[in-house]
């Protein structure tokens, strides 16, 4: 628990530093994720040391969004002025993004499976 929390915060910190170095266009948490992955992959740290903490916090991520979600109340007025535009744009674009990404990836996988069969 202590060891796992320490490693996660350490890689978060390293990620933040790296983010500052490259001008901040990738957030520290995302770089921390990549660094933690690399440390595990190249056996710098043992998987067991972060397993418990990492599994429990990633399984309950949604609860961490409550403060930000409640924050929508502050922007209620700003948002309500252009509500139609905002809702249509976000809903439409989110659905299109989901469909595009899923279909492109699945097509790649199908094509690869077909090529494998042809080679047999």
């Amino acid at each position, binding site marked *: 628990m202590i060891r796992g929390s320490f490693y996660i915060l350490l890689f978060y910190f390293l990620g933040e530093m790296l983010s500052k170095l490259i001008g901040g266009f990738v957030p520290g948490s995302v770089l921390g994720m990549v660094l*933690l992955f690399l440390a595990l992959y190249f056996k710098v740290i043992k998987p067991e040391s972060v397993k418990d903490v990492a599994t429990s916090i990633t399984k309950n991520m*949604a609860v961490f969004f409550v403060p930000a979600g409640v924050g929508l109340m502050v922007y209620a007025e700003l948002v309500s002025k252009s509500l139609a*535009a905002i809702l249509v744009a976000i809903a439409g674009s989110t659905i299109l993004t989901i469909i595009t990404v899923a279909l*492109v990836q699945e097509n790649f996988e199908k094509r690869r499976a077909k090529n494998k069969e042809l080679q047999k």
Partner: protein
Amino acid sequence: MNDFLNTVRPYLSTEIFLLALVLGVFYLGIIIYQKTKITLLQPLLTAMVIIIPFLIFTGIDYQTFYQNTRILNFMLGPSVVALGYVLYEQIGHIKGNVISILTAVFTGSVVGIVSVVLLAKLFGADKILMASLAPKSVTTPIAISLAEKTGGVPALAAAFVVLCGIFGGLVGPIVLRRIGVKSKIAKGLAMGSASHALGTARAMEMGALEGAISGLAIGIMGIMTALLIPFAENLF
């Protein structure tokens, strides 16, 4: 009634009470979701629907609420870092998918930015609104800095990121079922690309592989969007 509220407000504004409130209401949300199995009744939505009126009724301002529950907001960072472990566990499934993953997320990023800007324009949005909407699919820290660079409002961008996350988390699994996507990698990738950490929270519910890929997608989507947004400015 007002006297009573004035007396209890200091107690209700404490860290202990507000944190207990968030966790309690979220727990209630989980029970409701498990009992009803209705997709719309996401614990996050239940929590918002109860807490926002509660704050308005008791006269506790958002600043106070945010200050006293900031530990939860802070945990967003470590939870993204922790996805590195989930990714490590699932790495065997990703091998051989690198090019397809990059292509899929790149295409998704282009489609996402162009469609949100054009749809908003169609409905009469101004430049400021479009600039705040464009980075909606990435995590809050990236979205805020991108919106700032292109003349949007950071606070609005943050609100749109949350809206987009809630919406994608809600309808994502339904859309994916509707279009008949079977591949777990495709599902996770789509959830994370479109709806960042909230999409990932939902993808984790589908399975560990979906969740891990979704976490990876947050990072790739963030980088691609950061590179593409400067070109999107021409559309505003």
